[in-house]
């Protein structure tokens, strides 16, 4: 049945992007728009004695300077539901007091007719501080670790099963190592931007966000205005990677400034410094891993203890042990999480928060254990393969990891790997191979979609979700086309506007699995309504035909056994003088049992030929655990003279359910793996331990992967539909690609050089 879903189609929004016509948050034409430039604190802890803005304010073209002395009062955001928005720094609403909690905190906004004047005026503001001693480094003796009880999404960051300490003590082979990862900055190409204007008491905001609905909710909360008076628009986002998942002060400062001077205001964070202080980061992690195994390689016990950082104004937990719980069949396991409060901005999710640094440490530890046991690293993973969820014994909704191992190993040429490190040397170059397991949960929540099927034979659906480059515009349209029986060119999916029905935020790789089923349900509903109309219409060739005997293809409804008998949507709707069929659909995996079976019956009716349609739209969490797996295999070449590492090839095989569009799915995996190259080899933010100020403050200091760093890629999928998560059959693709990859690279570097670097990034100085 399915024809368009599964095809590697070009992106629907592609033409807008290649012609520069796609509008991002700072690019909307707003008459009378002026510019806000924010000023950051230059001390790390203390308070402001005085801000002297007089010179700046006298400058021609300056419209106002907003500080804690004159900014509007804000309300504390309420509600803990992640879909309703999360302000990253709950105890630091901007410009509300003279207190300074970190270096780079927003302390003023200069608003001027032009960006040039605003920037110059900002340089004229004099700030007198009263500085206090700060805690600016995780190793600071003043930093007091504590154990947080709540992680991301309310889960517990602490976990325990079995009798770890005793089993570890008695294990035949033991490993204990500590791994550290530095602070990473997301650095999406589009710096965080908010454009805001008021029309009487109504606020419109163009914001670069991964959660349009959440921003609307937060603005309503924080500014104290009704939700229906706030409209947030974000059709295009120039990358997020988590940094635009939580909401940052810029989203409030722009509307505050717009009110302050009664003009539309745009605030864009500067890449230099501001994107490194006020837009989130991945925290430092120090991860201690203990493993105990028998001489055959069966792991009996493990311990994964992480220390990460948070701020003094909110709590964020980079729960690096989260994936360790589910990776392998380890009967005795302790996951411990410590947090340290620092005078830095609050960290936030970064592509696979927890899993990305956690799989680095744990999968390197696995490589080290394999060496101790003299077992092939891939073999060690197979020996400890978890057929069922090791946490609770539940079945996986779909797990084909062994197939991923086979595909990846074949693609990289794993058989060419020597167990002995630095055995493969040609001239000055050492070659090495490494692998690691990838894993990420398959999340799904609630989405609503409105769909209009027009008499002209086209359809438009809308949902307040986002496309952060992941392909939402395209893949949702593919789902619509198949479910409605319309050509791909005749369907359009709209997103990024808070006036649309509520959709999920773009986090936790959940957009596809959450919005997809709602889009499909709406499309099936519209098709069903059209069929019902035809069946009841004496003038229709389909009059009195059973619904189950009617198919739709290319916009034409027809009798399945007699193709000649039929008519188009256009003929049907125009005869009935209906300009359109308008439907709403909501899919909600939090439905109660009674509601679930009603949904199931409705689905079965809509798709009589689809055996899976009889399932209800739910995630049976009693029976299944929903998790994706995969494997990365890496080949590196290391220059033994300079210590330069070149990743030669990455072969990734992913088991993420049905692949709806191979082109966009592959791009997700490759992009995430490239993020992993950065984590492994070059990225890492440095802070001055004395002042607490960031040193690597721009893209000249903070090195992200560029064209020249690219390896050859071989991305494969198992493409096995998971109808337990939804009738669409797809799990998320956005984050799994960054898990495991860093370890695979680090393991390959060890295999090449015999040098085990346990402190990322593996820069050349650490190899010579």
């Amino acid at each position, binding site marked *: 049945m399915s024809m368009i879903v599964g095809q590697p189609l*070009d*992106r629907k929004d*592609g*033409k*807008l*992007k*290649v*012609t*520069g*016509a*796609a*509008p*991002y948050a*700072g*690019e909307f*034409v707003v008459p009378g728009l002026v510019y806000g430039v924010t000023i950051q604190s230059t001390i790390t802890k203390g308070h402001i004695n005085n801000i002297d803005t007089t010179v700046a304010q006298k400058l*021609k073209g300056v419209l106002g300077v907003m500080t804690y002395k004159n900014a509007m009062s804000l309300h504390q955001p309420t509600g803990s539901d992640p879909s309703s928005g999360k302000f990253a720094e709950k105890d630091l609403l901007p410009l509300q007091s003279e207190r300074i909690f970190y270096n780079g905190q927003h302390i003023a906004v200069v608003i001027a007719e*032009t*960006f*040039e*004047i605003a920037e110059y005026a900002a340089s004229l503001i004099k700030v007198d501080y009263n500085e206090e001693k700060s805690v600016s480094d995780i190793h600071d003796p003043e930093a007091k670790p504590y154990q947080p009880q709540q992680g991301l999404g309310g889960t517990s960051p602490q976990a325990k099963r079995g009798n770890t300490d005793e089993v570890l003590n008695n294990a035949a082979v033991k490993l204990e190592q500590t791994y550290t990862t530095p602070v990473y900055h997301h650095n*999406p*190409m*589009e*710096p965080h931007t908010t454009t805001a204007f008021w029309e009487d008491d109504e606020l419109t905001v163009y914001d670069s966000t991964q959660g349009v609905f959440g921003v609307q909710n937060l603005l309503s909360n924080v500014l104290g205005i009704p939700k229906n008076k706030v409209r947030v628009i974000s059709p*295009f*986002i*120039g*990358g*997020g*990677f988590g940094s635009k998942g939580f909401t940052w002060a810029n989203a409030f400062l722009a509307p505050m400034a717009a009110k302050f001077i009664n003009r539309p205001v745009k605030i*864009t964070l*500067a*890449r*230099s410094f501001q994107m490194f202080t006020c837009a989130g980061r991945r925290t430092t992690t120090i991860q201690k891993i203990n493993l105990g195994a028998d001489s055959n390689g069966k792991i009996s016990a493990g311990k994964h203890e992480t220390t990460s950082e948070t701020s003094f104004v909110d709590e964020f937990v980079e729960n690096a042990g989260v994936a360790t719980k589910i990776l392998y069949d380890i009967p005795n396991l302790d996951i411990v999480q410590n947090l340290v409060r620092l005078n830095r901005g609050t960290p936030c999710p970064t592509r696979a928060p927890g899993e990305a640094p956690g799989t680095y440490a744990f999968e390197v530890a696995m490589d080290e254990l394999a060496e101790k046991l003299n077992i092939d690293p891939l073999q060690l993973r197979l020996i400890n393969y978890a057929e069922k969820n090791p946490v609770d014994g539940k079945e996986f909704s779909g797990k084909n990891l062994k197939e991923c191992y086979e595909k990846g190993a074949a693609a990289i040429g794993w058989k060419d790997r020597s167990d002995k490190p630095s055995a493969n040397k040609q001239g000055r170059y050492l070659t090495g191979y490494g692998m690691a397991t990838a894993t990420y949960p398959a999340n799904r929540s609630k989405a609503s979609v409105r769909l209009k099927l027009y008499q002209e034979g086209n359809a438009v659906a809308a949902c307040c979700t986002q496309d*952060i*480059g*992941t*392909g939402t515009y395209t893949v949702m349209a593919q789902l619509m086309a198949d479910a409605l029986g319309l050509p791909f060119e005749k369907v359009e999916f709209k997103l990024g506007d808070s006036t649309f029905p509520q959709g999920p935020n773009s986090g936790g790789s959940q957009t596809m699995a959450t919005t997809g089923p709602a889009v499909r349900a709406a499309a099936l509903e519209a098709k069903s309504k059209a069929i019902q109309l035809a069946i009841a219409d004496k003038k229709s060739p389909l009059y009195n035909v059973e619904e189950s005997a009617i198919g739709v293809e290319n916009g034409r409804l027809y009798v399945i056994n007699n193709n000649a008998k039929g008519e188009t949507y256009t003929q049907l709707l125009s005869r009935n003088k209906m300009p359109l069929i308008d439907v709403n659909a909501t899919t909600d995996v939090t439905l109660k049992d009674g509601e679930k079976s009603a949904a199931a019956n409705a689905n079965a009716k809509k798709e009589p030929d689809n055996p899976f349609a009889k399932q209800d739209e739910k995630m049976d969490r009693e029976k299944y655990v929903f998790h994706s797996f995969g494997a990365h295999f890496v080949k590196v070449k290391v220059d033994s003279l300079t210590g330069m590492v070149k990743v030669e090839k990455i072969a990734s095989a992913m088991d993420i359910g049905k692949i709806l569009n191979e*082109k*966009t799915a*592959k*791009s*997700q995996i*490759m*992009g*995430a*793996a*490239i*993020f992993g190259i950065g984590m492994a080899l070059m990225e890492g933010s440095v802070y001055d331990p004395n002042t607490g100020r960031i040193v690597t403050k*721009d*893209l*000249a200091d903070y090195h*992200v*992967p*560029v*064209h*020249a760093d*690219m390896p050859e*890629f071989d991305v494969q999928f198992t493409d096995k539909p998971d109808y337990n998560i939804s009738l669409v059959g797809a799990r998320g693709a956005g984050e799994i690609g960054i898990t495991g990859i860093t370890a695979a690279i680090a393991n390959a570097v060890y295999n090449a050089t015999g040098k085990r670097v346990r402190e990322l990034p593996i820069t050349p100085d650490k190899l010579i």
Partner: protein
Amino acid sequence: MEKKSESSTDEIKTGSTRREFLEQVSVITAGTALSVSLKAAKLPTNRKFYQEEGTVEVSFFINDKKMTLELDPRTSLLDALREKLHLTGTKKGCDRGQCGACTVLVDGKRINSCLKLAGMCEGAHITTIEGLAKGDQLHPLQTAFLKHDAFQCGYCTPGQICSAVGLIKEGHAKTDDEIRELMSGNICRCGAYQNILEAIKEVQKS
């Protein structure tokens, strides 16, 4: 798109203190590159400077259309394009010449428009992403980027495409590694590099 460098020196009527100053600076700093620097420093000086407003007038050709702007002399070419002309296809990623998102073609050469003051572009022919397509007919690189999924979020894309136009015109890149090296000033955080390479190679061949 082939751009002819229109000689802006024709319009020079008089020397000026600013020009002399630049020449002197060139002599002091440029050493052996003296002649080149002198040439570069020959700025047209018949432009209006509005003392009262603190603005200058500049005329250049954007996508073959002559534009005259009155600007704050501190305005970068990037901000002039985005904020004054609303040609927002050219992106601001770092404002420091470190990311390449603002790449445009000035007199056929790819540059970071954030590092160029708009006032220095008098008479220049500037091609932005908006000027590459001919009506509905996309530039071959735009078509190839679409086909090869050479972007995700799309924010670096105009810069990548303009840079690739410049790269192909330069004619230095023959191998994959050379293309990679010579495109390394354009960062793509989504990591579409492999697909960008494929797109460039396809157009290079044809």
